[in-house]
């Protein structure tokens, strides 16, 4: 995958990679359709569904009433009937209205009905951040879905994975919760024009290093890469791992990295309690338990709802500086007063990674 990515000389934004993945699958399979509030309006979900209506028509690209519960049931029923719906929520927070259908029907149907039906469904949603989006437009709720057997959860951090996991999710015969991040939409990466799959359940080492493993989830993978640059100045070599899929989780790739580094820092775009970071920490502890003591630290949202004012929002999230400082302290506990050069930190914070991933 990394090679393929490297070999593409076309740079594409995350939002366009999402759209291209859906468009190619819709062209290949007439059963694929896209629906959800505003998928067919002039803004086209920040551009991620742009042009699909014109190409595929209103039977395959249509807006819905604000009825997340029933629309999720409709998607599940259509999927059981052999169609391949992509149900879009412009913010992840609205998925709370879809929980009954996703948890009680979608996740369980294949099992509860003894394999008689399949639910090939993709549920797209976007996590927001900044611009004062606040408590109900910024939540990373992926761990709620990770808890439920029968669901898959994927959270691509870059354009290459956005396209490859979108195609994999559409082809998957199970409900896949597809977690996007608003701030990633205009980040670019080399993305091949042809159709390709990034296999669900496989993670990737994005930067190699020796001293500490940093696992970054969704947008926090980008922040972890920025932290990794900052840490280079302090001669701390961080290995950055992107799990890409949160369930099923590629714990092997994470543990192989820890074998080398001996330390684990998990940075999630969500709360830590009962979260993806807790799951990763537990699995790592079980894997190494009794053999090797692995220092583990988790970072995520402050344990509060998300505030709107930038003054408070800035301290709500982990950022490259706080991640770098935490990693540095884990590697050099004797020197926990280390602070990155402010100028360098600012530059890092602004740097846009363009891959390859």
């Amino acid at each position, binding site marked *: 995958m990394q090679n393929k990515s490297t070999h593409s000389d076309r740079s594409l934004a995350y939002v366009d990679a999402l759209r291209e993945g859906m468009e190619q699958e819709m062209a290949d399979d007439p059963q694929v359709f896209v629906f959800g509030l505003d998928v067919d309006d002039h803004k086209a979900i920040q551009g991620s569904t742009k042009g699909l209506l014109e190409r595929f028509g209103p*039977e395959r690209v249509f807006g*819905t*009433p604000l*009825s997340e*519960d*029933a*629309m*999720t*049931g*409709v*998607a*599940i*029923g*259509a*999927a*059981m*009937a*052999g*169609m391949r719906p992509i149900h879009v929520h412009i913010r992840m927070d609205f998925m709370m209205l879809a929980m*009954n*259908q996703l948890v*009680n*029907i979608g996740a369980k*149907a*294949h*099992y*509860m*009905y*003894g*394999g*008689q*039906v*399949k*639910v*090939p469904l993709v549920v797209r949603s976007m996590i927001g951040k900044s611009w004062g989006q606040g408590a109900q437009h910024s939540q990373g709720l992926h761990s709620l879905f990770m808890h439920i*057997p*029968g669901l*898959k959860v994927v959270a691509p951090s870059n354009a290459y994975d956005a396209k490859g996991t979108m195609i994999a999710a559409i082809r998957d*015969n*199970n409900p896949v919760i597809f977690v996007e991040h608003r701030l990633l939409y205009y980040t670019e990466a080399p993305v091949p024009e042809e159709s390709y799959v990034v296999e669900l359940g496989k993670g990737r080492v994005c930067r190699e290093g020796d001293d500490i493993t940093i696992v970054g989830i969704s947008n926090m993978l980008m922040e972890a890469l920025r932290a990794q640059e900052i840490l280079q100045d302090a001669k701390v070599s961080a290995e950055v791992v992107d799990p890409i899929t949160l369930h099923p989780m590629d714990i092997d790739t994470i543990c192989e990295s820890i074998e080398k580094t001996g330390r684990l820092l998990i940075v999630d775009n969500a709360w830590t309690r009962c979260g993806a970071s807790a799951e990763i920490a537990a699995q790592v502890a079980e894997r190494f338990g009794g053999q090797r003591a692995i220092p583990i630290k988790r970072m995520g949202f402050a344990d509060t709802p998300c505030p709107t004012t930038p003054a408070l929002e800035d301290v709500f999230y982990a950022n490259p500086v706080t991640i770098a400082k935490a990693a540095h302290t884990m590697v050099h506990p004797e020197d926990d007063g280390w602070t990155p050069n402010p100028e360098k930190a600012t530059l890092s914070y602004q740097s846009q990674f363009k891959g390859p991933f």
Partner: protein
Amino acid sequence: MITKTVPSATDTVRLYRTLRYIRRVEEEIARIYPSDKIKSPVHLSIGQEAIAVGACDPLMSEDFVSASYRGHAAYLAKGGDLKKMMAELYGKKDGCAGGKAGSMHLIDMPNNVLGMSAVVGTTIPVAAGFALSLKRKAEGNVIVAFMGDGATEEGCFGETLNFSSLHKLPILFVCENNDYAIHTPSSKRWATDRLCERVATYGMPAVRIEDGDVLAIREAATRHIDNMRNGGGPAFLECATYRWREHVGPGEDYESGYRDRNELAAWIEKDQVPRLGGMLSTDEREAIDAEIESTITEAIAFAENSHFPDTNQLMAHVYAE
């Protein structure tokens, strides 16, 4: 008002057979239940069979039904496999879901019976999703979505009515209104009882049928389904009925105080099984009854003789390939 429509002789035979068949299957389930061989809660339709029988009678094999956890009647009326149903109630590997469904999640996709659900109302939008796919296929097929009166209080009910009407989906919503949500009567749950008026505002025909008259239900279902096959949109039937047994389990519950046995007596008067049976000659009726008994005996034996699933089945079917 019992309809004066006189069914043809073949219609009478078919309707009686299905009514009697469902009644007897459930009476046998109730008989077996105290033995603890049935490994599942059961929500019996005894007394309510006429709705499933009347509404499914116009269906072709390519049409679908969906139903709630009180779904034995719909399953059987649509032609669901009785052996697989009984084995499923027994928790056996030859059950329709290999013992993972029980009574509340029956399914028979080869016979177009969608999976049932214990969470009230959840099957309603799923049925609309099937209806969307039927509309896209444009082969004139329809789905009948059964629900109880409690389900009409769920948000997804109104949401689904709106979406189905907006998209002119070929779906017949059938409310089996037995007046009780577990033990709470609709008078404690509904500000008004004008359910059909509520539904009609979504832009679909909505008709209430009193007395559980199987012929009236069949006539209304046929009319609306014929319309849908020709591109018409959804319709709604509210069928008054009465649950003779307890909410869940094989017995009666008239001594518990929340309802009066006199309510039952009025509905026994209107029972459609003897009504249709009375339209047949004794010989005809006895022949049908004997055939039904032998079918049920065979299905029970099938369930008894089937084995429990291997423990390695625990992990099977969590994810589809």
